């Protein structure tokens, strides 16, 4: 029996009986992913496209009901594009870049996440999470049809995890009863309440914020522009300390009210009570209450916390199971998808015997570093939005008052620092920077996109390692320490944007770029020994002696 823990939005992977359930000895799988949310599906897709078998076990048969994560950032879209799901997301999603910040009755300022030229994907789209998961799953189906070894088993709940030295044993419950499987690697993508984490008795420490937020997603045809509107101390009745209005696809609007800590949840979730709040907010904008319907409502409190270690031998944690942040800044699902892409190529090399165990330690190193950055940003936003003392309230209001009349104060206003990918400055797998080039493409950064005629740079990068040669002579490919990097040859002579982003003042450049599109090292010209050295470093192997 597998009892539902939540309602699903749509059925994507209905339970089906499989041969493993009748096997007399447990079947062995290279990679078992627990949880088919955005992180688990992205990981399975990435692995499968690289040819490494991925088995996803999910205790439901599709994404959970409710919009949940609604804001997907450019890096996530770049990853989804690489995986073949990005175009559908951007087409369905609401693209936005304008935001307005209000304090009480007055507008403090507005911002434009000025789209830079030459990127395939926008800075942000709003898209309900079930769509995001559905588009990933559609891409999985297409990959499966093309022979990618991906399997998603719905109605399969992992009830026991037994890590051993050379494998991990799993007990899986199904509508037809339990069965056992073994995995070389288990990746727990089972969310903030991760049952896997609990089964292994691992802790999840951090800070609980004493605040409650009410989400009301309403469906209406309203004349509001596609902008993010955020109020500190909203002037409309019952809105609490802050409020947010943001558009999603299908004429759905996300409305968020910050209600404080000491509330009666049950009472506040009553539709008539929610509607009273929404009425006040909407009529304050248009003078009347437009027709609308409540689509999805929820009250959440949040924590900023993370596991001490994302890797426990053959069990690794990714996404919310490993780290949890406040929703301000859209750093939950977005960072989880980056976990998945960080892990996919490393697991792929491991499963193919091309890397040593230490490579998986760097997954933990890099993504723990990223989680700390996300938690820091998210905590700072929360401290601004919910001042914790009288004096922090005084400073917060001083910033808001000044921001309305002095530009210098606007960067201090913090209603969420929107998710940008982490730069792995100085971490183990990154090498030298001998180019004196633009900081935006230094080692550790994710490669910056750039228009190349009819295509874009990120799409031209190889699935494995890329040796990017800009007006430089390099071999077609280079093999070192088990790593194969293939050349991508470009000229910046008629592409000033490429020169600006990758050359700076240098006449030529050679970049070594990872499968997850992060830059390993860069040089002004091709130096065989230097590239070999960086190639070893990039997969966690000791560099050969010079």
């Amino acid at each position, binding site marked *: 029996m597998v009892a539902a823990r939540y309602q699903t939005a749509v059925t994507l992977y209905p339970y089906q009986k499989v041969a493993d359930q009748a096997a007399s000895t447990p079947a062995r799988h290279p990679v078992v992913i627990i949880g088919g949310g955005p992180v688990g599906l992205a990981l399975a897709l990435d692995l499968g496209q690289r040819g490494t078998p991925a088995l996803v076990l999910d205790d439901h048969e599709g994404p959970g009901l409710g919009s949940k994560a609604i804001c997907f950032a450019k890096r996530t879209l770049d990853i989804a594009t690489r995986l073949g799901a990005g175009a559908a997301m951007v087409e369905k999603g609401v693209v936005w870049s304008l935001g307005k910040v209000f304090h009480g009755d007055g507008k403090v300022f507005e911002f434009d996440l000025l789209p830079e030229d030459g990127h395939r994907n926008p800075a942000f789209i709003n898209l309900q999470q079930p769509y995001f998961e559905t588009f990933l799953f559609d891409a999985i189906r297409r990959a499966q049809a093309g022979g990618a070894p991906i399997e998603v088993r719905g109605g399969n709940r992992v009830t026991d995890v037994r890590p051993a030295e050379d494998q991990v044993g799993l007990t899986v419950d199904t509508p037809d009863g339990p069965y056992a499987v073994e995995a070389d690697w288990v990746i727990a993508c089972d969310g903030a309440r991760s049952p896997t984490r609990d089964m292994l008795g691992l802790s999840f420490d951090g800070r609980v914020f004493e605040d409650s937020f009410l989400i009301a997603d309403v469906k209406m045809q309203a004349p509001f522009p596609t902008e993010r509107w955020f109020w500190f101390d909203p002037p409309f009745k019952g809105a609490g300390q802050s409020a947010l209005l943001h558009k999603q696809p299908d004429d759905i609007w996300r409305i968020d009210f910050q209600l404080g800590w000491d509330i009666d949840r049950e009472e506040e979730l009553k539709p008539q009570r929610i509607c009273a709040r929404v009425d006040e907010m909407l009529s304050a904008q248009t003078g009347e209450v437009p027709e609308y319907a409540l689509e999805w409502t929820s009250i959440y409190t949040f924590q900023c916390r993370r596991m001490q270690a994302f890797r426990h031998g053959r069990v690794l944690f990714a996404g919310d199971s490993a780290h949890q942040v406040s929703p301000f800044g859209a750093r939950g699902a977005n960072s989880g998808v980056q976990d998945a892409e960080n892990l996919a190529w490393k697991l792929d090399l491991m499963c193919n015997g091309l890397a040593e165990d230490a490579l998986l330690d760097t997954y933990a190193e890099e993504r723990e570093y990223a989680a700390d950055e996300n938690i820091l940003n998210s905590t700072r936003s929360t401290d601004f939005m919910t001042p914790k003392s009288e004096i922090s309230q*005084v400073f917060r209001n001083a910033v808001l008052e000044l921001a309305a009349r002095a530009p210098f104060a606007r960067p201090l206003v913090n209603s969420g620092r929107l998710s940008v990918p982490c730069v792995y400055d100085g971490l183990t797998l990154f090498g030298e920077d001998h180019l004196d080039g633009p900081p935006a493409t230094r080692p550790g950064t994710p490669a910056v996109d750039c228009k190349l005629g009819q295509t874009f740079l990120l799409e031209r990068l190889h699935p494995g390692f890329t040796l990017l040669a800009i007006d430089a002579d390099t071999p077609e490919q280079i093999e070192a320490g088990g790593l194969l990097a293939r050349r991508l040859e470009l000229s910046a002579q008629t592409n000033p944007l490429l020169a600006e982003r990758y050359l700076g003042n240098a006449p030529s450049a050679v970049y070594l770029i990872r499968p997850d599109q992060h830059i390993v090292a860069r040089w002004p010209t091709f130096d065989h020994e230097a590239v070999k050295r960086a190639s070893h470093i990039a997969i966690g192997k000791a560099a050969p002696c010079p």
Partner: protein
Amino acid sequence: MPLTLHPNITDPDGFYQELLDAHEGKTKADSDALNARLILILANHIGDRAVLRDALEAAK
């Protein structure tokens, strides 16, 4: 330029009077708000994070 803790204001008595005048007749809350704005404006003018850090330390 490092943080200076040596006299640097011309006409110190005049400045002090202007500072107090700015708070004249204000409630505690309004005065606190004025001080906060003033700190933010001065901090932005200084800009240099090292100097600001030293100033925070010196004020403790």
